[in-house]
């Protein structure tokens, strides 16, 4: 997995555009050429709350091109509601890019990208990078209902093959997206996934059974987002290249160590997670 050696900074940006691809889902684009220039697929930013209250909000970077960076998010609480209230011309300060990002260095030729709900927000950049390198990309996209399968056209326009599943059967196959992945033929040589934790666990199990390496972008509550508070940990293999440097096994000879999702992650190899 790549480490974050890019220049991270607080960027004072201006909102360029705001749309609602579905009720309760907001796509917010802002002017941030320096951030766009250094962002890698799978990284995130912290949006400093415009009102100055509450902790900053971690958001996956959806688009980063030329002068514009965009985030795509589900409005689920006071902090995202505040961000959703921004309009073109409003100022927004963001810290980023943060976290590692997907490791696409192995020149994968056939990649399955698994998205659960708003997890799609971290997957456009890797899809664009993979297609630019002429890889075949199949997107397995699940959501509660058809209306929440946002940005399908966008991914299709990038050149993905798209397979959908919905909980209520209102679009694509009824059921979980991991069911679609298990039947993927021919088998992909790499899986990238982002979504709710149960979906990521199911993806990890499916990939383990099929013998396909998988990279998972985890979701966890962050406080600082920069590795300072150790609040967002996940247990991983002590021998992982991503394991924070730590002394040998202790406390019962544990072979795991708690890695920070914000710093060592948010993307981890599925087979190295001990969750």
């Amino acid at each position, binding site marked *: 997995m790549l480490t974050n050696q890019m220049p991270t900074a607080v960027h004072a940006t201006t909102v360029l555009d705001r749309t609602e691809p579905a009720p309760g889902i907001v796509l917010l684009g802002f002017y941030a050429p320096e951030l766009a220039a250094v962002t890698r697929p799978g990284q995130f930013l912290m949006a*400093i709350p415009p009102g100055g209250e509450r902790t900053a909000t971690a958001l996956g970077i959806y688009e980063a091109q030329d002068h514009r960076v965009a985030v795509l998010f589900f409005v689920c609480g006071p902090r995202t509601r505040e961000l959703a209230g921004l309009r073109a011309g409003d100022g927004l300060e963001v810290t980023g890019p943060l976290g590692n990002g997907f490791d696409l260095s192995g020149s994968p030729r056939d990649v399955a990208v698994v998205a659960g709900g708003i997890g799609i927000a971290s997957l456009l950049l890797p899809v664009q990078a993979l297609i630019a390198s002429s890889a075949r990309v199949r997107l397995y996209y699940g959501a509660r209902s058809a209306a929440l399968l946002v940005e399908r056209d966008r991914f299709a326009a990038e050149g993905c093959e798209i397979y959908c599943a919905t909980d209520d059967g209102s679009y694509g196959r009824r059921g979980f997206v991991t069911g679609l992945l298990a039947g993927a033929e021919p088998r992909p040589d790499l899986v990238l996934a982002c979504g709710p934790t149960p979906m990521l666990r199911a993806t990890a199990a499916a990939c383990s059974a099929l013998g396909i390496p998988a990279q998972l972008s985890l979701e966890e509550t962050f*406080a600082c987002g*920069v590795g300072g508070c150790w609040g967002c940990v996940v247990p991983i293999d002590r021998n992982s290249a991503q394991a924070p440097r730590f002394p040998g096994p202790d406390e019962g000879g544990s072979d795991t160590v708690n890695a920070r999702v914000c710093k060592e992650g948010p993307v981890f190899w599925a087979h190295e997670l001990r969750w």
Partner: protein
Amino acid sequence: MSGSQAAYAAVDLSVKLGTLELAYPTLMGSGCYGSGEEFAPFADPAKIGGVVLKSVTQRPRLGNRAPRLVATPSGMLNAIGLQNPGIDWYLEHDLAERVPRPWKTIGSVAGFSVDEYAYVTQRLAAQPEIDAIELNVSCPNVAAEGETFACDPKLTGRVVRLVRDTTEKTLIVKLSPNVTDIAAVAREAEDAGADALAVINTVRGMAIDVDTWRPRLGNVTGGLSGPAIRPIAVLAVYEVACAVKIPIVGQGGIETVTDALEFFLAGATAVSIGTANFIDPRIPERIVEGLRAYLGERGLLSIGQIVGQANRGFAGAHRCEGREG
């Protein structure tokens, strides 16, 4: 530079805690600021008084299981559980590879026995990079033992007395709000040789997930921080400032200069900023500029002139001339 700006520039914000001299009366709270380096890209290191490092114990600790954080109204609960690599590794790697910064570096020591506190303090305080020691006798998130020390005045006294013998450097004892009489604990710490007191650590709290019927923290209970605890912290500083002469580092939900001023007026010599760094890491430097302007506008020359001004029972030894009441 206009006349007023020149006056502001002359305002003296430096303070002393024991022998520790801070250019600014602002510390970054332990556990909220990592080693400082995590925030260095976003904050101006020259505008920070000191950084209290994350607590270290004798043995490595994996810390509590996730989730470790829950957002709550006007604050957050945390239960990290003192994850750290242990003192040996810490000295050999974390501290040795540290980037020199203009801020003062305060090592934080946690432990589960009186002897562990003394041992870790002796090791840590011997390092030239460490300017002072904060004794974390009040972590609420490590089974029963962690907070026991700060909840028992006699035990606090024992720990501080033993640790006092291991170092000449400034010793700051961090007190728990989860006690009946914080002033009594403060007096014991002062009698035992503490140079300063950090008031307060987090307030114990809990949140429950009504969908799963389970506590939301992996550790079940946690420590509440943020503006939700500020009035509790201001009162604690006020009460401790009536009880001891040694300086107090006030902390608990400080986000703005106004918040910080409440603590100074209650009797704090310095303040510590923790959770607010999660909103915006530039908050500490804004507070410093805000203090400078506040004092300058009132024709005051130093931060010491406002310490304890709202506290009629203020017992601090550094009572300043011109203090009213």
